[in-house]
């Protein structure tokens, strides 16, 4: 007595049927068992009900084609049945697949656990612990980096001979300063227009539109021009520092420099820091002027204030201190942007993804620090009454 039934739809390219006899069971595989067609078989093979037979066989001799994934399914089924205590004869395949069967059966032994569950309490505690330890180490790393850079700067000042690479410094000033002129100028000009327009709109109600110029002068010179410039430069040059140094890390260029005996802080970090410290005050000054021009243009068209009137009012509104308060912050912003940019660049690991991640982090951190510092400056200035 033998029953045979199709376990899968007969039109499927990969299919099998089970032949039952009282004491034994035979799996007959047919069609083409290839990677692209076997997905449907996976569940059906797991669901085969063996009943209480002692002997089971797997017969693939009628297969037209089989590949390694298909072979794996047969091998897995055999192993599962064996683990249930059945006797399973050797898998039969057409002879041309003998070596394939051998490879799959003998080289692959245990199915591994691949993906860990990330949502257990244990995993959460582990992540928190890892994060804390990582944070502490990072803090220590930043401190030692700042210390090292300070020492290098001091040494460059005390022994200025070959220590400072003048060519690199000039290149950095050009790259971060001169090449940024168009974008900084345009944005400062637009900010000047916006500020003048909004100020005029409000002040007109009190008939005090002439004070738009005071608003412009004080607002731009003290705060906005410096802040906008610093933020643009953080996005433009801070990110470039991280990406440049990071790419050098990926290419092992930093390692090469170290083996040659070149000090990486000295050659890569110092020119960038000093270059930006020189460039940013000038850029801020330039942004002051462009913002003023924008404001003057808006005043002329919106309030019909001519340039001589504008200049006279401006002279009354601002003092040298107003300008200095704005410009004195620029080197500090530059220092922070360059320090963060270079630090994150040196943190890059030897893979491409890490360059992108740290570049993003460097921009976010430097913009954040610039704004925090700006607030700190405001508090200090108000305390000492400037």
């Amino acid at each position: 007595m033998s029953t045979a039934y199709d376990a899968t739809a007969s039109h499927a390219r990969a299919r099998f049927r089970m032949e039952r006899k009282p004491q034994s069971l035979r799996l007959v595989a047919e069609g083409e068992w290839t990677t692209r067609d076997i997905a449907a078989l996976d569940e059906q093979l797991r669901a085969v009900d063996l009943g209480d037979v002692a002997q089971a066989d797997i017969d693939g001799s009628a297969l037209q084609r089989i590949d390694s994934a298909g072979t794996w399914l047969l091998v897995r089924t055999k192993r599962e049945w064996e683990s249930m205590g059945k006797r399973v004869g050797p898998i039969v395949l057409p002879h041309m697949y003998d070596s394939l069967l051998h490879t799959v059966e003998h080289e692959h032994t245990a199915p591994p656990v691949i993906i860990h569950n990330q949502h257990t309490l244990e995993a959460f505690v582990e992540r928190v612990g890892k994060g804390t330890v990582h944070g502490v180490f990072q803090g220590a790393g930043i401190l030692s980096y700042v210390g090292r850079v300070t020492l290098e700067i001091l040494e460059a000042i005390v022994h200025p001979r070959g220590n400072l690479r003048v060519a690199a410094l000039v290149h950095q000033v050009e790259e971060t300063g001169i090449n940024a002129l168009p974008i900084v100028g345009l944005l400062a000009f637009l900010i000047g227009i916006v500020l003048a327009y909004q100020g005029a709109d409000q002040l007109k109600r009190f008939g005090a539109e002439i004070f738009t110029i005071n608003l412009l002068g004080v607002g731009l010179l003290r705060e906005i021009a410096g802040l906008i410039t610093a933020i643009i430069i953080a996005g433009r040059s801070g990110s470039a520092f991280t990406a440049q140094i990071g790419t050098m890390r990926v290419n092992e260029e930093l390692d090469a420099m170290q083996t040659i005996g070149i000090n990486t802080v000295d050659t890569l970090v110092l020119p960038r820091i000093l270059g930006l410290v020189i460039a940013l005050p000038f850029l801020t000054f330039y942004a002051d002027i462009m913002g003023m021009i924008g404001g003057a243009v808006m005043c002329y068209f919106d309030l019909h204030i001519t340039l001589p009137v504008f200049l006279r009012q401006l002279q009354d509104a601002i003092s040298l201190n107003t300008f200095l308060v704005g410009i004195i912050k620029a080197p500090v912003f530059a220092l922070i942007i360059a320090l963060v940019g270079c630090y994150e660049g040196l943190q890059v690991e030897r893979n491409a993804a890490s360059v992108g991640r740290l570049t993003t982090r460097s921009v976010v951190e430097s913009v954040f620090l610039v704004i925090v510092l700006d607030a700190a400056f405001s508090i200090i200035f108000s305390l000492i009454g400037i």
Partner: protein
Amino acid sequence: MSAGRPNTGTADKDAIIKVRKLVNGFGDQLLHDHLDLDVYRGEVLGVVGGSGTGKSVLLRSIVGLNKIQSGTIEVFGRDTSELNDAEMRQIEMRWGVLFQEGALFSSQTIAENIQVPLREYLHMPQELMNEIASMKLSMVGLPEDAAAKHPSELSGGMKKRAGLARALALDPDIVFLDEPTAGLDPISANMFDVLVKDLQKSLNLTVFMVTHDLDTLRATTDRIAVLVDKKIKVGTIDELRRDPHPWIQQYFSGPRGRAAA
């Protein structure tokens, strides 16, 4: 697998890749000048040539990463320039490429890397994909614990093996290997040769291999294609040794060539 015949274009053989009158170049410089090449089903073809002769460009042209200037490339009997996107995907399912540094996706684990082609082309239960990934890993001789690692945690040789496992994920007909043994120590290189030969036999692969490694050529290839004078000369290693061309003579009869004999 008996050694292939040296002459290309014989009608009795089943050419799985057919390159005809291929012209490639950058700017004024011509790399390939009306180059012809046949790759037969089930053979291991080694491609050699001096630096800058366009070995990798030839490989990239065949797999469609490089826009060719003129000529035709037929894969599985279809001219690749005339295929639409869907037809091209059908062909792409049937080949795997191992890039020089493995080109593993760095944000994913090795197991996920191997599953990328499966996930892209097929609807498979995750569990089956995990099983297939771990089977491929053991086929290329990587330990089980490599599955959960990221590419940055693997050595160069292991990355190549993992790259090969990804290239084999869909059980392709053709595998392209770009300098598979470059940068490996001789023992690992030797093991890689054995691995390629074993897999080629058991999976009935056609292998197109760009390499500089004379030992690899000797150990694995059925025929060798030499890129000289912007064209290709094909033959077995013994036939090429008798070729009078000075570059080929230097290549196979230089100190390294003799050592590998």
